[in-house]
């Protein structure tokens, strides 16, 4: 072997090392002193939503909703231009973090909007927590604990919601309808647990009984095996929470197996959500569900939003679309109130949390002291509009529903978050644990 070779090899190694250091330098975090949004110049907003992957449809709706707001209202508020940068997190937590870092450190974003799936939202919350100059808006990540037991101060539910909120209302309503024995079927992961938990908790408080508890893993191809388990004679109603593609399959099979006319169905927010109704047919018409959004709500705030959305995207807006639209509205209102000044981030956060939105597509919305949403819950029913499109019309409204329902916040927080094992069946035990309207009969 020649004498030159070792030298060349050393050169090779040195070059590699140099490359490593250069790379490191290139992806270095940006400027160190960042005063958040400052008080002049454009505001960079990073929108992190899943536009690829399994929830791509919902993520795209979220992006559309956000963009629509600025298209209609112009992207300037109180003299400051809003510049949006969209990043796709493909529904993955690691990617969410990378994108968040990139947006904050390289693009100088002072506001981050997102994200959808609970684990990505929790990851984002974790990232935002120590940053004192970035504000996070969470319009769709509905994991209960983000405004209960795991609050991150600068990750705000602007236009957001909690998974269990509509379900609490549903449980109570079910009892009022005269149902005493109900079957529950929810997807077997955190979102499903929180939904079934909410329903079970309030329903059992009144004295109702859950006669059957079914859990379907996300991505169940065939609900018939669960439906075969449901004997219409054994219960008064069924509360069902399905997500995404599962909803389409479930609703179809609900009709196929003859249950539609034999057992009343109480759907959860995502069981009969607009984004899924788009692909459904007659099997969905007439079915009821509970949610914090109804595209058929006959209020100008909602209808104008719906009309504009239809014009821009040729489909009815889902709650995902409404969530980011409202987040934009929320943010714009705060910015206006603060005269465009974001330099005092904690003051801005205070203002943000103090917003009381009257005219969002969801209806009136505000936050409680934990950052949880107080908003109207809706009993909705699927109907067909004159263009043959399915939509949710409002049957009943439940304004000012708190994330704690009628429970005392502290007592509620002392309990664990809803999981498969804890659904609130035996809680509360006494009226002390209620803040109002104690339904328990002298225990």
């Amino acid at each position, binding site marked *: 072997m020649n004498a030159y070779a070792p030298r060349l090899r050393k050169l090779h190694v040195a070059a590699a090392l140099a490359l490593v250091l250069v790379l490191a330098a290139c992806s270095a975090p940006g400027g160190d002193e960042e005063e958040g949004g400052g008080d002049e110049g454009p505001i960079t907003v990073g929108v992190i939503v899943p536009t690829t992957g399994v929830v791509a449809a919902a993520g795209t709706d979220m992006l559309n909703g956000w963009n629509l707001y600025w298209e209609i209202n112009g992207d300037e508020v109180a003299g400051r231009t809003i510049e949006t940068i969209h990043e*796709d997190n493909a529904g993955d*937590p690691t*990617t969410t*973090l990378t994108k968040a870092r*990139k947006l904050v450190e390289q693009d100088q974003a002072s506001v981050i909007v997102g994200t959808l799936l609970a684990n990505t939202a929790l990851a984002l919350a974790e990232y935002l927590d120590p940053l004192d100059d970035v504000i996070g808006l969470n319009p769709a990540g509905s994991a209960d604990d983000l405004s209960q037991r795991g609050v991150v101060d600068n990750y705000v539910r602007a236009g957001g919601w909690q998974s269990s909120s509509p379900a609490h209302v549903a449980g109570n309503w079910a009892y009022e309808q005269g149902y005493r024995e109900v079957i529950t079927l929810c997807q077997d992961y955190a979102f499903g647990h929180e939904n079934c938990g909410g329903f079970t908790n309030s329903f059992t408080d009144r004295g109702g009984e859950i006669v059957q508890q079914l859990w379907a893993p996300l991505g169940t191809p065939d609900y018939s095996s669960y439906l075969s388990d449901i004997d219409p004679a054994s219960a008064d109603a069924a509360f069902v929470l399905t997500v995404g593609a599962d909803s389409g399959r479930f609703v179809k099979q609900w009709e196929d197996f003859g249950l539609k006319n034999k057992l009343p169905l109480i759907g959860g927010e995502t069981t009969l959500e607009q984004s899924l109704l788009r692909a459904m047919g007659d099997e969905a018409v007439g079915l009821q569900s509970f949610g914090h959004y109804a595209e058929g709500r006959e209020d100008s705030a909602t209808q104008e939003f719906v009309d504009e959305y239809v014009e821009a995207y040729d489909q009815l807006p889902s709650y995902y679309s409404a969530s980011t639209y409202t987040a934009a509205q929320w943010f714009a209102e705060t910015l206006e109130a603060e005269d465009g000044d974001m330099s005092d981030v904690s003051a801005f956060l205070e203002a943000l949390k103090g917003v009381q939105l009257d005219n969002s597509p969801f209806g009136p919305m505000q936050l409680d002291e934990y950052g949880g949403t107080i908003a109207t819950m809706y009993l909705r029913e699927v109907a067909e509009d004159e263009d043959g499109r399915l939509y949710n019309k409002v049957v009943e409204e439940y304004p000012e529903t708190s994330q704690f329902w009628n429970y005392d916040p502290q007592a509620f927080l002392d309990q664990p978050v809803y999981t498969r094992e804890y659904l609130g069946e035996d809680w509360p035990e006494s009226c002390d644990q209620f803040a109002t309207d104690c339904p328990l009969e002298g225990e």
Partner: protein
Amino acid sequence: MATQMLFFGLFALSINLIAGYGGMVTLGQAGVLGIAGYGLGIFYTTYSLPLGVSALLAIVSTIVVAAFFGLLLVRASGVYFLMITLAQGMVVWGMAQRLTTLTGGDNGLRGIARPPFAVEYWSYYYFCLGVVALCVFLIARIVRSPFGLSLKGVREAETRMAPLGYDVKRIKLIAFTISGMFAGIAGLLLAMYNNFFSPPSVYVKASAEGLLMSILGGVGTITGAFVGSGVFVFVTNYVSGYLERWPTLLGLIFVLTILFTPDGVVGAWQRLVWAPLLRRFGAADEAELIEVGVGGGGLLSDRARKISKSEMSSTGASTSSEPSEPVEKTRARS
């Protein structure tokens, strides 16, 4: 981003160790990585053990699991090996998702801290750099050791190794376990990077991505793993901001690599740039080693080099592409 390139590179390197040097392609490495990541999360957050202790326990768990998986794998090879690793990885994923009280289910585990001296972005980067550099050094030593050579022997001609006195099963098992350990270290770095760990990091897609990085860069080389992770992280995190169809781009790069330069970027570099350079400077024999493909050739390209290109395209599979297969088949039958 660079930090990611480091620990994903380590992950790809662990795959390289068994796929490239050992000829055993795996689609379950993310499962192994997951044991470490979750281990750290569980010991640290649920049991509140100190970070160092948690990390150590996590690695030990990973080694144990990797050895267990390896035991199940020793008799398999080729496609069947691939399938078993796939199943193993998915079992880990399934458990991560279902054992909610332990792993947090889909929500994952939050609050995984970094070592106190490596909390900031920069300090964490240097920490990872140090850890990864150490691992690379160790792996390089392993590869050049007698063990490493016997591993390559297993890749090249498994059936001939046994008569020569090599305990093939043991070699494979050790290789798999070692590779698992390094995957575990990568898992620790990932968990601490995100301060978080959840099921998607363990899904088959993550294993496939690791394999992708390994092959892109050059399976069978050490630098290849980092080149591959570099390209992958770059496209996923940077390009994705500009190109909506970035997964297509990634897929395309991958397909083109397999078609035209199966030994990856580093392999191409070695053949097209390094070898001529060596020749130019008089190290002809070393250059020849590269061209013939004995050095870090790897699983994919060896056979390609044994056949001339013209033979490949004209008659397809029938004549010359598998010179050793009929021979090995006869042996298998007898």
